[in-house]
């Protein structure tokens, strides 16, 4: 395995609970020249369907994973190598490849997957990864939870100590949402940082979480090292209330599916398990009233209550804005609201959940942003 000209493509591990994944189809045929970030192969887990992006460049010499077949995490499913590497060497590499021992047991033993912390805004669930000097806090959007960062948290953990929390009313955090307004949610974020003794953090917010992060930066600039706003609320007046109202109203698989499909550029990303996980959350006592109140206060009738772009322009911390071009919840045009003030990237082939659909590129942008 010392030959650095040959690079394995392995079954990825998306989140701690993933042990295996199914190859559903190759997006590039054997022999294609691959650049870093190219989408190579589609993989489906019991949670979500996704795409493996190239971490290295080279020619796709072998497509070993058979569509429809399930492979364990880290199993060899393809090979990248330069065009001049002889076939015999590639065959020898494939024959000698051993799936690394399951590291999951050790990770599980090292600590629980999730932790809880008591704050004045209630008991909040969070995940923590990495040991870097910088601190990153990931803030999900309306109806979401910390697993919205499934494809990002581990990638960022190499460069920082990364926290992802469930906001009040969301995930497995307490369901009480106070006045159900932006001030309560940003207060909860600051309370979360207080409780974990985080003096200052890089805030990464998605959708409503972007507005929460922005409001926190405006109220407590000393606590916020930078902002990364992804498909963010708070940058323009329009929002698709069909999505937010539909999400609040849907109580069954059949009603929820078309609502969730609006989140993604590729509606096929919405698996049965994803729908079921969201229904399980929505069935919890208190969720319906929390979401109803938040949606009525923050997104009434196709309008966002808080547009913070002008005030953000007056702040000093670096800002990164990322959007999926085909976002059907908050229009990608809002990415222009901080043009000149922020680094702005609109990614084609992605919808509202751009951090999941184009995780490789979004992670790259976030890592660059953290260096600034």
């Amino acid at each position: 395995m010392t030959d650095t000209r040959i690079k394995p493509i392995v079954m990825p591990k998306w989140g701690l609970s993933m042990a295996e994944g199914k190859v559903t189809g190759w997006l590039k045929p054997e022999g294609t020249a691959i650049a870093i970030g190219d989408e190579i192969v589609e993989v489906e887990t019991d949670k979500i369907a996704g795409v493996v992006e190239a971490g290295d460049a080279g020619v796709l010499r072998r497509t070993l994973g058979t569509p429809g077949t399930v492979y364990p995490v880290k199993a060899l499913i393809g090979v990248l190598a330069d065009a001049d590497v002889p076939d015999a060497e590639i065959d020898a590499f494939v024959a000698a490849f051993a799936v690394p021992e399951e590291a999951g047991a050790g990770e599980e033993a090292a600590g629980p997957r999730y932790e809880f912390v008591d704050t004045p805004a209630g008991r909040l669930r969070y995940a923590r990864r990495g040991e870097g000097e910088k601190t990153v806090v990931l803030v999900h959007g309306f109806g979401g939870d910390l697993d919205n960062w499934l494809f990002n948290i581990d990638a960022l953990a190499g460069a920082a100590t990364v926290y992802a929390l469930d906001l009040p009313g969301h995930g497995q955090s307490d369901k009480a949402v106070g006045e159900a307004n932006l001030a309560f949610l940003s207060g909860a974020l600051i309370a979360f940082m207080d409780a974990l003794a985080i003096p200052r953090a890089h805030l990464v917010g998605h959708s409503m979480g972007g507005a929460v992060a922005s409001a926190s930066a405006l109220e407590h600039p000393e606590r916020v090292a930078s902002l990364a706003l992804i498909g963010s609320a708070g940058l323009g007046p329009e929002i698709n209330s069909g999505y937010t109202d539909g999400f609040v109203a849907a109580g069954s698989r059949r009603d929820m599916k078309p609502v969730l499909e609006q989140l993604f550029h590729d509606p096929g990303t919405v698996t049965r398990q994803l729908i079921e996980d969201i229904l399980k959350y929505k069935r919890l006592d208190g969720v319906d009233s929390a979401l109803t109140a938040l949606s009525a206060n923050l997104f009434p009738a196709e309008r966002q209550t808080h547009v913070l772009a002008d005030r953000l322009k007056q702040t000093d911390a670096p800002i990164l804005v990322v959007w999926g071009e085909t976002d059907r919840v908050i229009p990608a045009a809002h990415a222009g609201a901080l043009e000149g003030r922020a680094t702005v990237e609109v990614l084609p082939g992605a919808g509202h959940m751009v951090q999941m659909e184009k995780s490789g590129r979004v992670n790259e942008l976030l890592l660059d942003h953290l260096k600034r």
Partner: protein
Amino acid sequence: MSRTLSFKLAINEALDLEMRRDPSVILLGEDIVGGSGSPGEMDAWGGVLGVTKGLYGKHGNRLMDTPLSESAYIGAAIGAAACGMRPVAELMFLDFMGVCFDQILNQAAKFRYMFGGKAKTPVVIRAMVGAGFRAAAQHSQMLTPMFTHVPGLKVVCPSNAYDAKGLLIQSIRDDDPVIFCEHKNLYASEADVPAEPYAIPFGEANVVRDGRDVTIVSYGLTVHRALEAAQTLSKRSGIEAEVIDLRTLSPIDWDTVIESVENTGRLVVVDEANPRCSIATDVAAYVAQQAFGALKAAPQMVTAPHTPVPFSPALEDLYIPSADAIAAAVLKTHPQALAA
């Protein structure tokens, strides 16, 4: 917070949470507290298999040990429900409904209708169902179809701990009489169960496995047998079965069943009840009528035989629909695979 919990403890937790939330929730049943009722034996039993154990310590006299008279205490529960309480009565074995059936059939099920909507009867009757417990012919029946036959009753039969908790909470909050069927051979089965209260709406089936080739519809214990069969079929014959857990039998989620059969063109219904006028015949008939054009093969039914549940362990094991029998029924809907 979510953690692994057994089916039995999930039911206990649902009762505990609803008693904490709503003071009108009370429990009645034989031995649900402590058997004889003398102080030293309080909380000793918690019902015949210990489902309510520990609740007396938390809720005291809101649990009542009743005399061995189902007609008396089921009637008392129904009367209390009509007067504004939300009683949960434990009938122990559903087989015992014979002695209290007038209270259920002619009273509870009829009040809302006969009083023009002015009365409601929010009673839950919990009872164990199903074979495989070596408990012989009078303690092992799957009598679900006898209750789905009666308008005015809701009938629930969960297959796992997560559903058991959410469906029981929904049953207690529902304003109509609910027959809540607990398969005794599922009591030890475990699942991820959130610690918080949550309610699963009635009439919402759960698609527990996706597949394109055949729809297997079931409920209760046999959902697990259907999943086992589906895995075998996938490996041996390349047949991908979609498995639907009905969860509630009244109301029943026809839309999910029909939608699935329209995709797969084939139907196998698995029901632990006896075959005549059962959930199996009901689903097969409805699909034949509503989705006849989509069917590529005759619907198949896998049920218990039309006999009492045998006491002989060997015969009892043969009595419950097995994964092999389900797989064989699926192959009957795929004549090409059978020939190959």
